[in-house]
C-alpha cells in the first residue's frame, strides 16, 4: 500500500524546468531514495512535498489525502518531517530546545494559558520532554542535550537534524543528503540509524543521497533523476547499472 504519491509533479523557475513531470510512489515502511547529479531537482522535490514551493502542475497524495493545497505549517501535523541539505537548525538555542520545537505540531495550549504557565501547560511540557528524551536516547545525543547548536561539531548537527525530524512523530521522513559532510564512520552510523528508523520505528523514509554505498545499503527502491525528469526506477543495483543513469553521471 502506498503512503505517499507524487503524480506528474512539475515546477518551473523562470525558464528552468527544475522538476518536470515526476511520478513516483512510496510504499508504507520502505526506504525510497532519489538520486541524480547536482541540480537534478532533488531538493526541489522535497521543497514541493513540504509545500514550501507551489507546484506548477501535478498532485501530492499523502495517506490517501490530496495535500497539494495544504499550507506548509500544517505538513508536520499530518506526519511528514524533513531534514535540510544545508542544516537548518536553530543555532542559538540548545539541542533540547531544538527538539522541543519539533513538538510544536502537537501543541494544545493557547496564548493566555502559556502567558500564565497554567498547570495544563506544564503537564504538556513534561509530556513533550518525555517524547524528546526517547529520541535523544535512540540517537545517543545525551551528552549534547544542553549544548548550544553553534558549539556543536558538524557531524552532531547532522544527527540533531535527524532527531528533530523524529521528534515530530512522523509517518514519512524526508532526508536530504543525510551523509553529506560526514566521515566514513559517521556515514556508517547514519546507515544503521536509517535502518533502525525503518525497522524499529516503522517510519517510511524518502531520501536524497549521493553516497551510493549508503544508498545500496539502506534503500528498497531508487529513483534516478536528471534535469528534473525521472530516468530510471528499481532496486539500487538495477538503477546503478541502468545505461541512462551511467550516462547522466558521466555527463554524456
Amino acid at each position, binding site marked *: 500500500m502506498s503512503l505517499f504519491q507524487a503524480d506528474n509533479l512539475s515546477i518551473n523557475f523562470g525558464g528552468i524546468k527544475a522538476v518536470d513531470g515526476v511520478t513516483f510512489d512510496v510504499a508504507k515502511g520502505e526506504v525510497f531514495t532519489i538520486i541524480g547529479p547536482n541540480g537534478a531537482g532533488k531538493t526541489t522535490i522535497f521543497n514541493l512535498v513540504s509545500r514550501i514551493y507551489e507546484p506548477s502542475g501535478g498532485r501530492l497524495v499523502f495517506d490517501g489525502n490530496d495535500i497539494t493545497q495544504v499550507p506548509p505549517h500544517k505538513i508536520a501535523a499530518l506526519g511528514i518531517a524533513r531534514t535540510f541539505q544545508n542544516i537548518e537548525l536553530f543555532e542559538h538555542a540548545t539541542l533540547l530546545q531544538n527538539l522541543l*520545537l519539533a513538538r*510544536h505540531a502537537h501543541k494544545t495550549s493557547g496564548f493566555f494559558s502559556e*502567558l500564565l504557565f497554567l498547570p495544563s501547560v506544564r503537564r504538556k511540557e513534561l509530556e513533550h520532554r518525555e517524547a524528546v528524551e526517547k529520541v535523544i536516547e535512540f540517537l545517543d545525543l545525551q551528552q549534547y542535550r544542553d549544548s548550544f547548536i553553534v558549539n556543536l*561539531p558538524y557531524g552532531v548537527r547532522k544527527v540533531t537534524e535527524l532527531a528533530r525530524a523524529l521528534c515530530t512523530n512522523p509517518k514519512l521522513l524526508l532526508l536530504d543528503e543525510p551523509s553529506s559532510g560526514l566521515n566514513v564512520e559517521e556515514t556508517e552510523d547514519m546507515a544503521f540509524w536509517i535502518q533502525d528508523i525503518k525497522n524499529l520505528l516503522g517510519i517510511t523514509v524518502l531520501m536524497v543521497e549521493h553516497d551510493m554505498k549508503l544508498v545500496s545499503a539502506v534503500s528498497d527502491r531508487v529513483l534516478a533523476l536528471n534535469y528534473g525528469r525521472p530516468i530510471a526506477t528499481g532496486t539500487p543495483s538495477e538503477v546503478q547499472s541502468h545505461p541512462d543513469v551511467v550516462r547522466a553521471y558521466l555527463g554524456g
Partner: protein
Amino acid sequence: MRFLFKTSYNQDVGLFRDKVDLFWYSLLGVAALGLPLLMSTYYVTEISLVLIYAICGISLMVLVGYTGLVSLGHAAFLGIGAYAHGYFLKIGIPWIPSVAMAVVITTACGLIVGLPALRMTGIYLTIATLAFALIIQEVFNHWTAVTQGFDGLPVAMPVIFGISVSKANFYYLCLFFLVLSLWLTRNLLRSPTGRAWVAIRDSEIAAQSMGVHLAIYKSIAFAYSAGLMGLAGALYAHKISHLAPDIFNILLSINFLLLVIVGGLGSLHGTIFGAIFVVLLPPIISILRDEIPASLGAAATSTGIAAIGAIGKAIGGFLAKPGVEAGILGLILVLVILLEPLGIYGRWVKIRVFFSTFPMYKRATFKRQKSYMKSERLR
C-alpha cells in the same frame, strides 16, 4: 565550579534551575525592596527609570532578541501608551482601567504595525517601523484634542484606589510591573510560543516545516512587544510628568536598541544590564564633560605645563558639541557588536565562569565552532 545534577524534567521547566538560583534571586529581590531605604528620593526616582527602561528592554528583546525582527520605532509605542494613559487619567478614568486600556490600545497598534512584518524581512521591516514612528510623532503633534500638542500633557503621580503614590512608592509600583513583565515573558519563553519565536529567528524555513505558522507567531511577537511598551509608557508618563511629542523621537528608539544589544541579545538578564547602562550613560558623559577640563586644568596649574589644560578644554568642548552624544552611542553599539556580541550578559557569564573555575579557566571555553554555510536561496 557548581555542577547541576538534574533529577526531574520539572527542573528544566521551572522558573529557577535549582535552590541555589532561587536563593540568589530572592536575595536580589530583598535588595531591590530595601534599596529605597538606603537612598535619597532623587536616586530612587532615577532607579525607577531603570525599572521602566527594563520593561522597554523586555519588550524589544522579545522582538529583536528572540524573534529576530528589528524595530526602530519602539519609542512610538512608548508614546502611545503614555499619551493614552495620560489622556484617560485626564478625563477621569481610574488608574488601573486606564493602564489596562493603554496596554490594549498599544497592543492593537502593534498588531497593525506587525502586519507588514508578515511580508517584509530584515532592513525593509526596520524601515517600515521607522516610518511608523515618524507618522505617530506627527499624530502626537497635531491631534491636540488628545495630546495637547506642544503645550504638553501634564501627568500627576498615580492615585490608586484613592491612595496617592509618593515618589518613593512609585519605585515599588515600577518594580512590581517589571517583575510581572519578567514573569509573563519568561512563561512565554518556556512554552511553545517562545520556542516558536526563537525558531523563526534562527530559521524560518525549518520553523515552518516543524509546524510554526510564521504569520501568527510574528504577529503575536509584535503585539506582545507593543503591549509591554504600552505598559512601560503608562509608567513613563508619571516618571516624566509632562508629555511632549518630541520626547518620543528616533533617538529614544535607538536608545532602546542600544539597550538590548549592549545588554545581550537573547537574554532577559540582558534587559536589566542594558537598562542600567542606558540610564547611566548620559550622566556619565556629562560628568566627563565637566570633569575632564577641570581635572586636566588643575594638573596644568600644578605641573606648569599649559598644554595639558588646553587638551582638557578641547576634550570638554568636543563632548559639549551637539550630536556627539549620539555619536558615542553609535560607537559603543559598533564596538559591542564587534567585540562582545552577547553584550554585558555574555561578559558577565564569562566572568562568573572565570571565577568558578579559577585557576583552570580556558579561554577556549567560549570559542565558537566555525559556522557552516547556510543556503540563502530559501530566505
